[in-house]
């Protein structure tokens, strides 16, 4: 076993998820199965290999700094669960 149930609970919280005890047990088994599978990559010596994060040979992509209309406030807020005084409203933060 690579990761324990307690670790799965901690990772779930990092991903902002709450698991039932049954889910915790099931995911522990499943995540271990996947981790065991991906361990295959350690067969390969990659010490001299550069990583690929993106396929394209792009570096900085520039465009002209033109003034153009952005998303109007009412449209940006239209899909929000709760709005107050033209802003997103959320529950207590601290």
């Amino acid at each position, binding site marked *: 076993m690579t990761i324990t149930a307690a670790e799965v609970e901690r990772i779930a919280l*990092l991903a*902002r998820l709450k698991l039932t005890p049954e889910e915790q047990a099931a995911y522990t088994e499943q995540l271990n199965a996947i981790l065991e599978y991906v361990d*295959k990559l350690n067969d390969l010596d990659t010490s001299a290999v550069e990583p*690929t994060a993106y*396929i394209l040979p792009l570096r900085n992509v520039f465009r002209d700094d033109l003034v153009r209309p952005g998303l109007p406030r009412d449209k940006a807020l239209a899909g929000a669960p709760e709005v107050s005084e033209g802003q997103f409203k959320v529950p207590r933060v601290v």
Partner: protein
Amino acid sequence: MNLCELTAHELGELLKSRQVSAVEATEAAINRIEAVDSRVQAFVTRTVEEAFAQARAVDAARSRGETLGPLAGIPMALKDNICTVRIRTTCSSRMLADWVPPYEATVVSRLKEAGAILLGKLNMDEFAMGATTETSAFFPTRNPWDLERVPGGSSGGSAAAVAAGEAFYTLGSDTGGSIRQPAAFCGVVGLKPTYGRVSRHGLIAFAPSMDQIGPLTRDVTDCALILNAVAGHDSSDCTTADLPVPDYRAALNTDIKGLKIGVPREYFADGLDPEVAAIVRRAIDKLAELGAICEETSLPHTEYALPTYYLVAYAEASSNLARYDGVSFGLRVPGRDIEEMNINTRTEGFGPEVKRRLMLGTYALEAGNYEAFYLKAAKVRTLIRQDFEAAFNKYDLLVTPTEPMVAFRLGEKGNKKPLAMAAADSYTSAVSLAGLPALSLPCGFSQGLPVGLQLIGPSFAEARLLQVAYAFEQNTEYHRRRPALEVA
């Protein structure tokens, strides 16, 4: 004449010569959806009124004598992770079940400009995570060739709708095989373009270093027509290539004499269904008969592609889907404070497959794990890319089975077994990691179910893929078969 049996370009000719109006074509498609979609379940949202309004506008423009493009008046539908204004875009998730985007995807704007008629939005695996369309939070889509079988995924609704005659073409998205695999399972043509060929602006992200939008169609000519309409640079997506877009339809011809085709032996190893293997071998013989030079070759890191894909895709997903926090759009489930609200929202909003991937991705990116998992995978990704580069020094394109098997039964690959889908993903994910274009086209039937042939090209060689696919198609009849859905 049953209009719904036609390809998009055949319908386009009838529209152009005014033998059929856009309203009649739209009526035919909507009647077809009403007749079969209760069984196929491809559509998440239907946009009947909007479709007729668009059709009337196209007919009016035509009667004014305006010059219209080849897609004007042709009804189509979109995978439900492609943003549409005024029409909800759900990703087949509870998280976005009622969300109406404030802007539309570039591909949608381009198709609208071309006069496309939008019939609705199509079912998918939740957030494009899955290979069966069973992880949809709403309902599973069924394979029109056998309603007890899956259509593949994640663009299952997009493939099923085309196969069932419910739309003349659709758009899907492909991160690790999500266009090609359902295209193979449903017997249609599906193209994943080169990374950067088609704008992702307005495509809801799963793994942005691999996500690409592409067409699902009834034949190769349609595929070329749709790619013509959607490909090209977009200032709203800085990863689109600033390269000229050839006329893909004009590039279609059947002369493939002397073309060098590599057949990587790793794609014919254990786990490949023998009947699928035989059908694909016969398809390769056909290409040789047409003058191509087919040779066995090797992509030595193939067996590492899927574990690499899992780590890269899940890591990217875990960081991308952090935005679903109940604050600015989508679902909110209340909590005492903001953190509890975040947790409640994500716990109720995401299904089990998405949660599993987010947790694995979070783990792979965590301090202390990053080097061992994400960075390791990024390095192996380089080796996989180099395999293809070496192969394309010798060959014009590569050919493989799209999938090692035909469509399986609903529920056969249980959600409880995370690696049950591994075989289905393993033939398509290497191409995604390398950002290459690949096309699946029907190349035969095994026990009445379609088998797909995957053509893989070097970057931006879509015209060559389409040409070889066209040569094969013009010399075979598989693309003319339609599922017998009437016999319920």
